[in-house]
């Protein structure tokens, strides 16, 4: 039984379908990468799992099961008891994600206080332990620091400490390294993977950086315009992508373009509210689109080579990576 199972999740803001019929599952202890351009709905989908979609956003799903428990019918209080405890999330901008008015120590112990109670001293001890676990030197002193006194990388470590404070079963990391220096990015990724193993938690890594996914994820979901377009084990996806979008994303990696004078790009942008094409949502930008792609919406096709939403998936022998 998977740890998290999402069946037909949709999130709409007014007329905009940010997430459109998403099916997703993640097993205990698994590292899942969710990849896609800005606006592909990857963050929104995970915010919906966290229960953080605020008005005017509307979340619908046939089922969202977490750890054997159906989340869709829970009341707000029951939902809050899971949020931040069993499912935790860290965000893209560490510098603005921590409250500037409170000390690091306060912000860590607050989560502990809400979900686990305990005494002031036990919470403080745990906060110290967490700070050293996430690799912050001199944790005693850092407890009393304010976020503006720390660097971006340090703040992201504090965010991670807050997220893992209650030993969650699922950690969602939304572009955790995007706002950081390249040298720090690798450290933070290593830290997340180390903690994932140590705590045995499942990790969802949302990113638009294929390189990050390649280094970390066991399985990758590719999203486009709110839909899942391809999902596969990481290795196979990188060597033999089946969806033209995945292929185009991989093709745009600088590492793969060394022998070419110009880096290939995907023309156009993700469709918005008013320019959603008919048929396959990717067809206007697709290199291998054919007449039928504009007519009918392709279904998700499952098989032993993962899942793909395409009328004309690339054949494995057609593309060499």
């Amino acid at each position: 039984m998977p740890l998290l199972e999402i069946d037909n999740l949709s999130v709409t803001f007014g007329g905009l379908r940010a997430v459109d019929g998403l099916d997703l599952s993640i097993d205990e202890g698994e590292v899942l990468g969710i990849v896609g351009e800005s606006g592909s709905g990857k963050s929104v989908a995970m915010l919906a799992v966290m229960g953080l979609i605020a008005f005017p956003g509307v979340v619908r799903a046939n089922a969202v099961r977490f750890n054997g428990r159906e989340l869709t019918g829970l009341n707000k209080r029951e939902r809050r008891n899971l949020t931040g405890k069993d499912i935790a999330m860290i965000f893209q901008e560490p510098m603005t994600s921590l409250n500037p008015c409170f000390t690091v120590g306060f912000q860590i112990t607050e989560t502990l206080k809400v979900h686990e109670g305990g005494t002031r001293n036990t919470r403080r001890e745990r906060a110290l332990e967490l700070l050293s676990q996430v690799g912050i030197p001199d944790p005693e002193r850092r407890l009393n620091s304010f976020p503006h006194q720390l660097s971006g990388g340090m703040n992201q470590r504090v965010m991670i400490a807050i997220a893992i404070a209650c030993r969650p079963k699922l950690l969602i990391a939304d572009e955790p390294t995007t706002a950081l220096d390249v040298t720090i990015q690798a450290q933070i990724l290593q830290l997340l993977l180390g903690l994932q193993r140590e705590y045995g938690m499942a990790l969802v890594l949302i990113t638009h950086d294929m390189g990050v996914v390649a280094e970390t994820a066991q399985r990758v979901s590719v999203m486009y315009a709110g839909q899942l377009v391809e999902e596969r084990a990481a290795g196979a996806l990188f060597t033999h992508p089946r969806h033209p979008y995945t292929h185009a994303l991989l093709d745009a990696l600088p590492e793969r373009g060394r022998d070419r004078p110009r880096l290939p790009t995907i023309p156009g942008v993700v469709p918005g509210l008013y320019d959603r094409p008919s048929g396959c949502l990717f067809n206007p930008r697709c290199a291998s689109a054919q007449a039928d792609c504009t007519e009918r919406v392709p279904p998700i096709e499952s098989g032993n080579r993962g899942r793909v939403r395409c009328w004309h998936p690339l054949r494995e022998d057609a593309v060499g990576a």
Partner: protein
Amino acid sequence: MLRFILTRLSILIPTFIGVTLLTFAMIRLIPGDPIELLVGERGLDPARHAKLRAEMGLDRPVLEQYWHYLTGVLQGDLGKSIVTKQPVVDEFFTLFPATVELSICAMLFAVALGIPAGILAAVRRGSVFDHSVMGAALTGYSMPIFWWGLLLIILFSGILGWTPVSGRISLLYFFEPVTGFMLIDSWLSGESGAFKSAVRHLILPTVVLGTIPLAVIARQTRSAMLEVLHEDYVRTARAKGLAPWRVIGFHALRNALIPVITVIGLQVGVLFGGAVLTETIFSWPGIGKWIIDSIHRRDYPSVQGGILLIATTVIIINLLVDLVYGLINPRIRHRR
């Protein structure tokens, strides 16, 4: 921190000179002099008038008079009232507690209602509540104080008879002032009903004086909250699984309060300005009414001294607000 306070205090010097110059010049620009107003319609023969003017030093060149006044101020001497012959400082500090009491109550009223109203309006943005609060705030802000005061008197004192029309306490009670604050003094006096009477006398002036700060604070709180509610750290607070009241009333509010505190400080100046009108309407024996009376009597030293002391008070309060600002905003406290 000390350097910060000293820099702020050094601004006092040019402000003092400006205030003395302005009040000194303006009171003299009003036609008539104190002597004419003292004798009233009885009239006075020109020789006697000239003699009295000379006694008061009013026949000297204006610049010399100003110099005389300024040197006095620097030695801590604000002069004596032309009408009562009492030192201005004594008169001021006898009446000052009445104004302070009224101002504190008005500010508490404005803060206690304005901040929650602003928060609710921001959280329920676009709702009926939001529109009513902002509409009421605009109305309150635009309404002339004297007119608003008279309306309230007509309704609550005249028609309903719930509150007294004027004064600080019923004439039935008399006790020696201890602190000058009627609420405290009436409580200490032990006379039954005295405290209740003091409260009843305070209600309408508090509402009238507090209306403009209330409107400003509610609007500022709303806009600050709206800004803060979209911040990433509010999302983080929700991602921790905190209850909505804690996310809004603690994580968001703490940040939203920073601009609100600044506005509260600025409103202190507005409060003293409003006190002049409010005290006149309600015959509240405070500084505002005293200054108005002094202007009517062309009591030059009282007007000059009173305004100088009020200006000083406002500046000091704003300095204190700046210090509080540093307390609630760690990003300022840790600079340097």
